[in-house]
């Protein structure tokens, strides 16, 4: 980046909030995915106006840019693959307003997800979407990825809990999509903005819905010898008209690994474990818990244990949320796949996942949102072994193929980003992708805002997309995707 551009960037945010020092830049080359690429500059704007001015400047110099929250994303959405400027949202981290009467809060994008619920807990309210990374990830990132979480089975994902966003468009305009009130007239631009992975603009304020905490919550742990029995239980619970707040499954490799890591009280010899949480008025929650217990038992659960108190409940959830961290004990590296299937296809697809693991000689642990059919196979590999990463990526692609063939989706909550863009063709045809490109061109006609994410390149799904150096896409790839992508 030439000095003149950097000077102008620094003039907008202040010299203390802009850097081109290689040592500083290297902190922004990663997110939670396997890819990495160095930005040319990092700036931390302190207001929507500063964001708008930075975007206008990037437009002037034809310079790519992207917004970054906590960098916890798992699909490479915050990796500056094309170089350019990273706008860190770290300074925009205030909860601006809490309105308990209207059950909403206005927050800046850099606010950590869990901090919203902490700030309103004393009011008996919460912000429902709770991704496993909620202690670190930011609401701006949640909006970009339309994040889910453990409790989205009953309550929905981020898009169901956001009323409006102040957005800086890729043209540098500051607009409101939605607002504090419902049913904003006109096209539902907020609906497409959420989950657009930072490619349609940058959120600078977010109006979130707050939900009262239920009176009673019952958490059950059902232990099975066979994973198929657990899978059938999931279908039977839903078919029985019960929508639990959460319905999670872990296989033996997961529970054994987690137990060694956090001592959550999980059995280490079970074929599978289900965590089922039901909520409501005390009588209703008790009734639902009893019904769930019956369904688990009828499907062959060898034990159904209920958390006796809040501490035990928290320990169970700590175990579940520690799953990814625990995988570090299993192998040097691991890769989190993310795909969705119709929940009735769980037994079939889990068997396919096991076969895929065997075919590639990789160990795969399954810990996932069973109620949504959202699989998260964790593939253990050794990054130092030549070819191990490539085999892992190929195995993950086979898992996604199995998901799509079962009628599902290539991502339930981690997004497409760099990681899965070449797998989009598994799920979508040319006309489907062309429709997405048309929408993108309406918002981001020059393609400078988080370029090259989400749309397929000339690679095939399953070919490693890891980028080992800062820089741009190869020329042939760039030609094939065009500026709108």
């Amino acid at each position, binding site marked *: 980046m030439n000095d003149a551009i950097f000077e102008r960037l620094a003039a907008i945010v202040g010299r203390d909030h802009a850097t081109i020092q290689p040592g500083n830049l290297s902190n922004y080359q990663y997110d939670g995915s396997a890819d990495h690429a160095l930005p040319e500059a990092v700036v931390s704007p302190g207001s929507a106006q500063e964001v708008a001015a930075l975007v206008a400047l990037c437009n002037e110099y034809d310079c790519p840019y992207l917004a970054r929250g906590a960098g916890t994303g798992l699909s490479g959405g915050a990796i500056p693959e094309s170089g350019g400027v990273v706008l860190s949202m770290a300074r925009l981290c205030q909860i601006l307003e809490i309105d308990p009467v*209207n059950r909403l809060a206005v927050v800046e994008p850099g606010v950590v997800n869990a901090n919203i619920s902490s700030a309103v807990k004393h009011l008996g309210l919460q912000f429902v979407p709770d991704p496993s990374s909620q202690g670190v990830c930011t609401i701006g990132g949640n909006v970009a990825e339309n994040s889910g979480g453990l409790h989205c089975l009953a309550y929905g994902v981020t898009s169901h809990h956001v009323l409006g966003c102040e957005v800086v468009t890729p043209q540098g305009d500051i607009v*409101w999509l939605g607002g504090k009130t419902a049913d904003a007239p006109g096209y539902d631009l907020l609906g497409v903005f959420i989950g657009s992975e930072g490619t349609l603009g940058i959120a600078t304020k977010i109006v979130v819905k707050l939900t009262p905490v239920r009176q009673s919550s019952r958490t059950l742990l059902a232990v099975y010898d066979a994973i198929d029995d657990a899978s059938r239980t999931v279908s039977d619970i*839903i078919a029985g008209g019960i929508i639990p707040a959460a319905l999670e499954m872990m296989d033996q490799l997961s529970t054994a690994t987690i137990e060694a890591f956090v001592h959550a009280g999980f059995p280490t010899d079970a074929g599978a474990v289900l965590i089922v949480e039901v909520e409501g008025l005390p009588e209703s929650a008790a009734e639902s818990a009893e019904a769930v217990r019956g369904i688990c038992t009828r499907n062959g659960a060898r034990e159904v244990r209920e958390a006796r108190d809040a501490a035990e409940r928290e320990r169970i959830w700590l175990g579940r949320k520690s799953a990814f961290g625990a995988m570090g004990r299993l192998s040097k590296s691991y890769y989190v796949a993310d795909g969705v299937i119709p929940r009735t296809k769980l037994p079939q697809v889990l068997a396919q996942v096991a076969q895929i693991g065997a075919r590639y000689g990789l160990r795969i642990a399954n810990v996932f949102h069973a109620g949504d059919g959202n699989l998260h196979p964790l593939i253990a590999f050794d990054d130092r072994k030549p070819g191990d990463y490539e085999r892992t990526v190929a195995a993950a692609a086979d898992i996604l193929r199995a998901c799509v063939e079962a009628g*599902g989706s290539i991502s339930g909550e981690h997004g497409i980003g760099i990681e899965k863009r070449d797998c989009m063709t598994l799920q*979508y045809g040319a006309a489907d992708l062309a429709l997405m490109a048309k929408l993108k061109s*309406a918002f981001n006609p020059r393609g400078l805002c988080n370029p090259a994410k989400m749309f397929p390149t000339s690679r095939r799904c399953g070919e490693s997309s890891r980028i080992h150096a800062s820089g741009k896409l190869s020329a042939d790839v760039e030609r094939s995707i065009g500026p709108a992508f």
Partner: protein
Amino acid sequence: MPRNELRTLNLPIAEELGRRAGIRPRVRPEECASYAIAGKVPKLVFSPRTLSEASKTIQTLTAEGASVIVRGAGTKQFQPPSPVDVDVVLDATRCSGVIDYVPADLTVTVFAGTTFVELAEVLRAQQQFFAADPPFASDATIGGILSGRSSGALRQQYGTPRDNVLGMRVCLSDGSIAFTGSKVVKSVAGYDIAKLFVGARGTLGFIGEVTLKVAPLPAEQRGVVATFSSANQACGAVAQMSSHALFPMATTMHDAASTRHIRALGHVGDGDWTLVVRCGGSRAGAGTLADAVSKVCMQSGARSTLLLDHDRILFGWSDIAELAGGAIYAADRFLNCAIACLPSEVPAVCAMGQTHGGNAEVSAHPHAGIVFMHIDATRHDDLIGALHLVAAEAEANGWSIAYLRAPLPLGAKLRQPVPPSSPIFLMRRVKAALDPTGTFDPGRFLGGI
């Protein structure tokens, strides 16, 4: 064929168009009359039976420079602004039927011309439902409900229909057929463009198929009817329900005049405002919830409360759902509009409705912050003047107004109010990107899009 020539279509030209599109259009005025939009009879009506037929038809019409209005059951044809002229109607009702339904997955895929009632019947057999209570439920199609962004008070527990659309297959003005979203309950693969088509009133393309998330029918439902002396008190009770973490399926409130349309209530008593709360759950759970709601209402100053059993609350809801969208009122007399505000502002908006609306009947979804005004246009001295006052007050307070239905002469004059903060320029770009030829009902959407 230039756009203006379509206005003088003759039979041979229509037949040529039909030959190219692969289906014969209706062309005689007497055949086309039942497909009128707000009294304007179209010159041609195409009724494709498949998405592929729709695609060929749309491609042909776009090539001829026609403007096309997609029409379902026509239940929302009187939403302002009325069209000045109607070239071609694309009748969506022939593309109907359930394509795929897996009860244990809680998903169903239907052709968009399927009626709400038809779908409800299929789902009810499995103790499930599409959790929405839109007006015009007896006739409306799923495509029409989504295009018109119809919803009801069930949004309190289940969200609006927008929140329960998982995927869509649409046809754009160039004839291309595209799928967006997925057929599973959770997906973040690519842009969620289905949300754009919800509420687009058919101006972005033709919705062919829709995959919906459905919900289990509660085993038991109960109603609580509470009367209050003021809207403020009634809203206070709703806020208290939230504070007590009570989660009913839906809550509506009605002034004395609108309460009279709810046949299941009979004569409920002495309140100026009536709150109706629909509770669902297990057999024991629904009763427990209803009792708790009733108690909160009494503590919040209700003059009386009444419990309704399962059948009676469902009977009551058949009227309540129709009330909100104005379906219960005579189309040739009443202006029906919805005003979105903060839940805490519902009493103020109700008061505004009663002040400016003259004889207006007022109802609300207090939990969502939506107030409905139903004004008898024939009995209002200066309705246009009153609407200006309402618009000014709404603008000053950040409320948004949607006209849902208007009698014909008025409907031609009314334009949907554009809130000052509305990003119309961005919406224009979206329209230009998805429908660059302006085939789909140009000029009638918000801001003249």
